[in-house]
């Protein structure tokens, strides 16, 4: 089921649209360590592209290249054909560690990007309200981060990213530190958010979702990229239809795929 990253899968009616994110021959070295090696990848607009790979394979570095935090030693990375020159709210990243600002309430965290842009307070409040509603944190709007659980803080993190009205959402193993139950709830909520029309003024959002949890990748991803040796070696189409429910993870075909992918990672 492996697909060359740059080819259109046959038999599917794909519009001839340029890819949203385009990476070509990316090399990244940290000192003597070569982390990314000739990596090329197209991410299509509107899809959730999951990336799996062993620890240390460079998944987070890849995300950081797209986000603009890491400048590649060679190669080109573009979003909508524009080269990436640094971090920006069009490609918001949700980090693995807790990045919620502890000195601000939930609401002020969520409205952060809007405040930066000087959005008028009425509009800012409205958007804040609707996004808080989307992540089910309306009742906790005035709480301080120190009063929240890990899962709630992750929801704040995602809400804050969405409020910036991004075209691309970059998820860096965001649920790695959470328990299985919370993790699955948030995976499901993430899918709901990606398909909700109202939260973004963008027509569709694109997401790149890095994870070491293969089931998570299968659940959230429209396509799953496998990273080995510093490059995307294979891409697998996500088998699940939309809308998805968590119990679909238990289906035998899905479990078989999971075992298959685990094998390919070795």
């Amino acid at each position: 089921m492996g697909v060359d990253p740059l080819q259109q899968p046959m038999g599917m009616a794909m519009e001839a649209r340029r890819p949203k994110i385009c990476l070509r021959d990316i090399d990244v070295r940290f000192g003597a360590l070569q982390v990314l090696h000739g990596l090329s990848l197209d991410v299509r607009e509107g899809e959730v592209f999951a990336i799996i790979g062993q620890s240390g394979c460079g998944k987070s570095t890849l995300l950081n290249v797209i986000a603009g935090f890491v400048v590649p030693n060679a190669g080109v990375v573009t979003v909508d054909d524009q080269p990436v020159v640094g971090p920006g709210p069009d490609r918001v990243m949700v980090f693995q560690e807790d990045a919620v600002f502890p000195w601000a309430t939930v609401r002020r965290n969520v409205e952060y990007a809007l405040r930066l842009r000087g959005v008028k307070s009425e509009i800012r409040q409205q958007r804040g309200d609707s996004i808080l509603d989307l992540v089910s944190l309306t009742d906790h709007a005035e709480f301080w981060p120190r009063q929240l659980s890990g899962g709630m803080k992750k929801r704040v993190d995602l809400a804050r990213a969405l409020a910036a009205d991004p075209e691309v959402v970059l998820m860096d193993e965001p649920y790695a530190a959470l328990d299985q139950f919370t993790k699955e709830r948030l995976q499901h909520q993430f899918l709901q958010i990606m398909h909700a029309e109202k939260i973004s003024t963008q027509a569709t959002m694109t997401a790149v979702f890095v994870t070491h949890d293969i089931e998570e990748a299968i659940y959230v991803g429209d396509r799953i990229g496998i990273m080995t040796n510093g490059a995307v070696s294979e891409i697998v189409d996500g088998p699940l239809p939309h809308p998805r429910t968590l119990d679909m993870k238990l289906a035998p075909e899905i479990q078989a795929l999971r075992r298959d992918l685990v094998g390919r990672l070795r």
Partner: protein
Amino acid sequence: MRAPSSLGMVEPGAEEGRARWASRARRVATPVAILLLYYTLTETRTVDKVFFPPVGKLWDSWQGIWPAFPGGLASSVFMTLTGWAIGTVIGVAMGLVMAYSRVTRDLFGGVFDFLRPVPIFALIPLFILWFGLGQEPQIALIALGTSTILGVTTIEAIRNVAAVHVRAALTLGATRAQVYRTVVVPSISPHMLGAIRLAAAASWGLDVAAEFMGAQSGLGYIMINRQQYLDIAGILDIVIVYSCLAVILDQVIQRLEHPFTKWTERRVQRGVVASMIGNA
């Protein structure tokens, strides 16, 4: 929903109230005990009454000091607060500049590290020669002493700003200036307020030292004056005044700092370990 003040599972209620009163009682008990001890020891002549004047003598000396007091108080308070304010601003600014980039750190850091350990008090005669007698050298001294404390703390505090917070701000669209304003400043506030209180306490001491070396007015000047008459009671009176001033300024700072630090974990209210056990 309004945020609860603590995330406890058990209703704090009466327990919390009792604990607070107990805390207050303890805080008052120690100074009162010390005062009682002093009073007892001096009245019963257990200690030499020349070196430890009884309370009555303290009052008598106070009467003698009183005419010069308002002027001296105004002078010392003015110099200390001015020096402390100037020093705080300069210190924080220096810290921010030096932490801004490698270039600035290299340019200014060396000089800063060299000047910092110079004992402030050794500069007093120099300052008097530069600025003349009067309030300027004293204010300059207090400002210098304050600024080194604040400068060092600012640099350390900025070093401890979490990288993930800075990256989060950048990915959300913040410019460099916005990162400073919205991430760095709130991040360092708790550290800075500790340093500001420390510097405030130190500035009273700097004021006394400065006044010893050529003041024409001020509380320290009164102290020198009393020393020349061997009036220990008078000296103690001024010491008590300085202590009260330091406490008042400290309390004011603590009250004013609350809106800037109420988001932090309230570890210090009960003690570092104790606050980890039991409900918030």
